[in-house]
């Protein structure tokens, strides 16, 4: 497949996944804010931190002040994360990005995938979207989530399961590892350091994180009724059967890349990326057998985020340029 096309496929997958996870995170956080009995900044600031746009928010919304009330203002944080097109990871930008990449490879995507993507793009620009956002916030996030989930489902059910889909899915999975790792890291850090968290609030906070990752029901099936930071972290890192866990995503990404570039195809480009992803997969595998402490969770997640970043870079030079 043409390298430029592969690049669009990869980024299409990343943007669609990013839009979905942003909508999910915002909806779960808004839900938590209602009855968390936490200082608002403790609820909303992590959203900005996870997105990696702290300095942008500080400069443009919080007027340069670290203790500005904007950090705890749910409306401001949501507007920044949904509509602000200067924010590179806002929902609006992710949807524009997904649609732009899709339009650049319209001949590669199935008509259904294209239409689902285009419809979401048009909806975001409609008055209806503004009205739903103002009137019924959760329905707004639900619409975005359903549209992106539809796109992800149609990719599998209407397209050839060959190179193009592998590149899209590689983008989806690497984006997902990133989202899970960042969300877990930020929450883990923020909430294990709160001094006097009562048990009920602690449970609420961790359930919110699980919900934001579509994992609360799956988690309960694995660890009925036991919600604590250590078990939640372990679940999100190492549960192989959960499609958003670090272990699952890294391994699945490795399998996709192996399909695209078999380990013994030494004459094909992509060898470095494959090797690096294999090493990461083995590393995660080995680490999850060891006990997890607060410090080791942070160190593990940082390593994963850094490696995924590096692998995306190598993919860019080896296969997508």
């Amino acid at each position, binding site marked *: 497949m*043409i390298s430029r096309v592969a690049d669009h496929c990869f980024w299409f997958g990343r943007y669609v996944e990013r839009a979905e996870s942003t909508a999910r995170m915002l909806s779960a956080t808004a839900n938590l804010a209602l009855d968390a009995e936490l200082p608002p900044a403790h609820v909303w600031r992590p959203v900005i931190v996870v997105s990696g746009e702290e300095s942008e928010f500080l400069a443009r919304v919080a007027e340069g002040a670290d203790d500005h009330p904007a950090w705890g203002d749910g409306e401001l944080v949501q507007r920044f994360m949904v509509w602000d097109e200067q924010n590179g990871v806002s929902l609006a930008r992710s949807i*524009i990005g997904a649609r*732009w990449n899709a339009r650049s490879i*319209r001949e590669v995507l199935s008509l259904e995938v294209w239409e689902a993507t*285009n419809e979401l793009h048009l909806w975001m620009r409609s008055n209806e979207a503004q009205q739903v956002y103002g009137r019924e916030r959760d329905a707004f996030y639900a619409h975005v989530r359903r549209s992106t989930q539809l796109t992800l489902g149609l990719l599998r059910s209407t397209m050839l399961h060959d190179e193009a889909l592998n590149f899209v899915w590689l983008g989806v999975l690497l984006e997902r590892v990133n989202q899970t790792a960042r969300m877990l890291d930020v929450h883990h850090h923020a909430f294990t350091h709160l001094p006097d968290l009562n048990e009920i609030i602690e449970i609420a906070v961790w359930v919110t994180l699980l919900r934001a990752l579509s994992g609360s029901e799956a988690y309960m099936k694995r660890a009925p009724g036991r919600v604590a930071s250590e078990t939640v972290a372990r679940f999100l890192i190492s549960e192989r059967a959960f499609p958003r866990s670090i272990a699952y995503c890294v391994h699945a990404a490795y399998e996709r890349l192996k399909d695209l570039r078999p380990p013994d195809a030494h004459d094909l*480009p992509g060898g470095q990326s494959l090797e690096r992803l294999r090493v990461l997969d083995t590393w995660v595998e080995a680490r999850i057998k060891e006990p997890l402490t607060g410090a080791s969770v942070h160190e593990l997640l940082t390593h994963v985020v850094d490696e995924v970043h590096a692998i995306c870079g190598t993919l860019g030079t080896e296969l997508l340029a």
Partner: protein
Amino acid sequence: MVQRQSQSQIQVTPGRLFENYPALDGTFDEMFEFGGPRPPFARVAQLIDKIGKDELAKFQALAESSLLQRGVTFSVYSDSRGTEKIFPFCLLPRLIAAGDWVKLERGLQQRLRALGLFLDDIYGEQKIVAAGVLPGEMLQGASAYMPMLRGLKPPGGVRTHISGIDLIRDPSGTWRVLEDNLRTPSGVSYVMENRQLSKRMFPRVFDAARVHRVDHYPTRLVETLRSVSPVTGGDTHAVVLTPGPYNSAYFEHTFLARTMGLELVQAPDLFVDQDKVFCRTTRGPRRVDVIYRRTDETFLDPDVFRPDSVLGVRGLMRAYAAGNVALANAPGNGVADDKAIYPFVHDMIRYYLGEEPLLEQVKTYVCLRDDDRRYVLEHLGEMVVKAVDEAGGYGMLMGPQSTAEQRDEFRRRITAEPRRYIAQHRVELSSCPTWIGDKGRVEPRRVDLRPYILTSREGPWVLPGGLTRVALVEGSYVVNSSQGGGSKDTWVLKETA
């Protein structure tokens, strides 16, 4: 049914579509003649009439939102936010009778055969000039002629793989060729998209009308491309070359690539090594044999056409000259659709084929000729003046609607560069019933027709119908989409049993 309905056989019911249809004087209407619908269309016209105004308004709105949802759009300007518009579309179809179509089809095939032979000749021995049929000065002044291509035989011997011939109808109903498009004619995707909409919105009328299908075009196109491949056997790798998503016809490029199952490439995806063309893929270089190029030929290869250009594929023309890659359409075709060469096409048909031309043309004044130029300058206010090498309605003077300043400007231009201009009397283009949303009624608007012809090794094939373009602005004669034009589905009716 129509206002002048003394002989109408159709009951007029208020709310029906064609109630009080105000036919234009001195204009041939495609659907109605004095008193009622034209006989071959009587049944279909009655069915359409019954749809009624309210229903049609609803269908029209549905059709437009469907085009937007499906992204059947053209880019308005370079903007990554994706500002795009739909190509205006009128649901009321343009009908063509079976008998008319048979004649048009033959005429178009004849024209394409002659134009193909002309191109072979003009890039070869130039016998037509030696024989005195085409004045040498006409050829020398043709800016689209590419001397460096002389003596070069294209792979498969075909040059005009895809062409679009613009036809109009004068007040007597005679079909006339207005211009030939032999470079990269666009619009065929709208023929297929418009047909989808007709079928969805008017399934019963469509079924009853018995219309020739159009959706096999992509299959015929890919066969045409394969037929000229330099490699034999089934291993041909054909691609569609697009300038990219900012191009106004990008939707069509993706449509064709998708429906043909070919890869859509941009120039930076291609490179040439030892006179062979390759594509950069995730598995290394892959050989390319046929390129359906939707890029302007002057941007094909910076080595040959524009040394200053960073666009294009360096060395592509060498690969083409070596016979290692087929280009559709062949570079250099512009000389045959030069508007000052057009007046000589009838002579070409007689000279190369020994046949009488089957399709009429429009009387054309070539400003390079002294007599013609004098006449044109004296009658500027009545004429349509066109630059020979421009398209899309640009570089044009519509005499009857022009201002004194515009006429002075064209007088200067014609005097300075006579070879660049031709002129014609304005033809009263035929009209077609068209839904005018603002007024909530059907009114006549002027139309033309662009049929698409595919030429393979076996000769020309004509897609039944083509793109009907309609000047949506009241009183306008300009059908180009860049200037307020829209399109209609074109129904070529089958012979009634």
